[in-house]
């Protein structure tokens, strides 16, 4: 059985779409929690999810990769610190930096792993209130030109789930200025800053726009009945964005 197989969850009727040829990898580390959810989101969006095991070094020809949330290695040392050294991460780092610019989305722990891997600048420390926080969170899409955000309107406000312990985004002032100047803040918190993140940053992108990381969880907002307040589906756009991006010739 592969790590992200869904042994207790029936099959979906996958929407038939022209995009369903796309293969999106979902990485599972020891301690990853949201890999099944990410897999579901990919299927709901109409693509094929491919399970990637942290200890393997074969990307299996996927067209994009999602590093889902959880507590890899317990997050005991620092969130994402140990996972960053997995063989699969070496492959992902290379592919993301290569000319092919593999689209990579890091969600929550995945975002933390991307910063530890230096694919994205800055880092995360404990929430300023020091508690785990689970809530429905409003975000503003600050950059709708990335591989993972192109189906949103610039400035659109979306509600997705936030749930973490170490979600306070920090970086030095120079980096923060650069992020803002270059439009690399992808998402910001609206209404209330839930963790003390610098400049209300919820998510960022690399220069090329193929690597995006954010703390909140779009994969928990793709099915009516199970998303924020059991209705929201604002997260689906992440997954349709990458499919659009792939079809748009990047592949």
């Amino acid at each position, binding site marked *: *059985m592969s790590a992200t197989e869904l042994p*207790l969850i*029936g099959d979906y009727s996958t929407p038939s779409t022209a995009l369903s040829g796309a293969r999106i990898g979902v990485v599972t580390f020891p301690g990853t929690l949201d890999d099944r*959810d990410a897999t579901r989101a990919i299927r709901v969006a109409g693509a094929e999810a491919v399970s990637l095991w942290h200890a393997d070094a074969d990307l299996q020809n996927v067209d994009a990769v999602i590093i889902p949330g959880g507590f890899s290695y317990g997050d005991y040392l620092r969130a994402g610190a140990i996972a960053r050294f997995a063989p699969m991460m070496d492959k992902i780092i290379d592919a993301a930096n290569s000319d092919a610019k593999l689209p990579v989305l890091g969600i929550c722990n995945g975002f933390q792993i991307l910063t530890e891997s230096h694919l994205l600048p800055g880092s995360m420390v404990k929430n300023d209130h020091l508690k*785990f926080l*689970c809530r429905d969170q409003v975000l503003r899409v600050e950059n709708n030109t990335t591989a993972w955000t192109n189906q949103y309107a610039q400035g659109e406000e979306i509600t997705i789930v936030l*749930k973490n312990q170490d979600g306070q985004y920090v970086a030095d002032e120079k980096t923060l200025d650069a992020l803002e100047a270059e439009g690399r803040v992808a998402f910001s918190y609206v209404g209330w800053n839930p963790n003390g993140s610098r400049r209300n940053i919820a998510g960022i992108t690399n220069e090329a726009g193929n690597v995006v990381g954010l703390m909140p*969880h779009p*994969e928990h907002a*793709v099915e009516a009945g199970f998303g924020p307040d059991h209705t929201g589906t604002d997260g689906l756009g992440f997954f349709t964005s990458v499919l659009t991006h792939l079809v748009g010739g990047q592949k």
Partner: protein
Amino acid sequence: MSAAEVKKFNMDTVENAAATPETELPWAELGLKQNEFEEVVKVLGRRPTAAELAMYSVMWSEHCSYKSSKNHLRQFGDKVTEEMKKDMLVGIGENAGVTNLGDGWAVTFKIESHNSPTMIEPYQGAATGIGGIVRDIISMGARPVAVMDPLRFGAIDHPDTARIMHGAVAGIGGYGNSLGLPNIGGEMVFDSVYQGNPLVNALAVGVMRHEDIRLANASGLGNKVVLFGARTGGDGIGGASILSSESFDDSKPSKRPAVQVGDPFAEKILIECCLELFKGSLVEGIQDLGAAGISCATSELASNGDGGMDIELTSVLLRDPTLTPGEILMSESQERMMAVVSPDNVAAFEAVMDKWAVEYSWLGEVTDTNRLVIKWDGEVIVDVDPRTVAHDGPVYDRPYARPEWQDALQADTFKASAAGANLPSTGEELKATLVELMASPNLCSKNWITNQYDRYVGGNTALATPDDAGVIRVDEATGLGVALATDANGRYTYLDPYHGAQLALSEAYRNVATSGAIPMAVSDCLNFGSPEDPDVMWQLAEAIRGLSDACMVLGVPVTGGNVSLYNQTGTTPIHPTPVVAMLGKLDDVARRTPSGWRADADGQAIYLLGTTFDELDGSEFANLRGHLGGLPPKVDLEAEKTLGAILINASRDGMIDSAHDLSEGGLGAALGEMALRYGVGARVALDDLCARDGVDAFTALFSESQARAIVAVPRSEEVRFNDMATARNFPVLRLGVVDASATSLEVQGQFDLDLAELREAHEATLPKYFG
């Protein structure tokens, strides 16, 4: 002396025990009574070895043997009809009961206590409570899918309550969140009776296909026994260190930790690797290690199997090399499992362990001797009939009697008391009372707690806080799912244990039905004081009798549970607190009913189902005024059944969009919660209700009569809905309408309560005390 030599020196073999019958043994320090020790000697035909003594002492403890409650608990097994057994795939006695959901799906759930560990170390105590119950679920062959946490702490303003609250909630969150299990509900009650003895109960639920059900037994001659997961350390064996010889043992840490530290990461790995073992059919039997550790796992596996078991204890991987055999047998180190594997599957088993980097060691094998034989470096240190350890512990018929004070307590009714004078009656007073109640410690918003729990992970949560029940989808293809609620009211049970326990069951049943699910099975956690106190023993006996009688009437079997005794400070016991967890089934979770109306419900009719009596004794309102006396609300199980049927049918047939049952705080609190759920107002009137049921406005709002619920019905469904209730002869009354343009809850002729003001009061309480 080297560590190995010390161990050898300390070794008390069976041979040695037979040769030295006069050796003094510390049985009293290990908690055995004289008669119990004599029984052990009789069973063995000789004095026990040190290791055997360790095993019997933990396995014959109250916690593991249920010696005070066993005689009473039998009623749960006896009072079941054929109808109730229909969907029960595994009943009481296994790690957790299993209920058939249909379509080849099964669900297993269980609730357990971790009270005293939480008092000593709130974070770790509560965390390992979650860890332990989740392992019970895994050991049935299931994937755990959700947890719940009924809590009871001391007075909200007592300084020690903050310590427990911060630690326990962070521990439950820290552990559960790291496992990827959504927390879908629980309870939070503050009462000074729990000051020195907080209650942390933990529930886990798991799902599986029928063919994946696993049981804890060691069968098949020659099959291998393996221990895997965390290494064994000195956790939770404070008492057992008596077994080591003082003078030759300077090498060991002076004091064994009584506290177990949890490693949720290790448990998450254990979940995944067990599922992979089940998927590949790589284990014949499996047992989690909880209380009494290896003693429990080996003796239970062996006695439930068809033969015996041979174990080499030096093969156990240790975190602390100085542990003696007795300590190893008693250790309660967390995140360990024991399995029985056929020789053909050994290689495949090891491959799964290696993939997940889980440590394991082969300890021995299944034999045909009917004996559990444990060796230390080849020398026999335990040779017992495993049944005598696991199942034939002492059973006591403890004396019990209705307490002398019970009559006086029941005679002291609220309205006749000084506290019951000057009840609110004007509109302004009723409004202020509702705000005060909804801001009170027990009825205030639990967001401060639930915000620290992940309720979304897994993507199958269809309802969670603050709805009446948590709802989890099981099958994505069909929407098949389960609902769960936990309830107890210690004050009601104190006033009348028989009916109080039934009220806990009634409320849990009602909560599940309100969400639209069909109640199916019960797990219970009986939190009581000392069984050696005849008053407490009576409370326990009455609660079990009440619960089992009511389960018969409601047609829901008890499939498992846990008894936690000696919950007291000095000689003062806690209120008897039988926490009841109810499991229900939804054919399609898309049909679940949330506990409040949304703005698009504008104009829907608000109906009250059920009858309101003058029942304020033991209520939250009386509690606010510091009074506890009289009789709890009347139990009406037939009415609960009919109400449940109406709520379930109305949900299935799309007649209602929201529903909320009435419980603590009565109609007032229920209306307030429904309006706050999505911040949408309503207009209601009480006149018809007061006239029909012969109560005043205060009683209408705050009485805690049972078998009641509020529903919001779309205009187009009103006739059908009324007809359905009337056809069942169930009282139904139109109270008012949802008003999406209103920002208030208006009780006509009484008051108009601004929702922002109500929310502010409702949500400020826990942050005010806990930051």
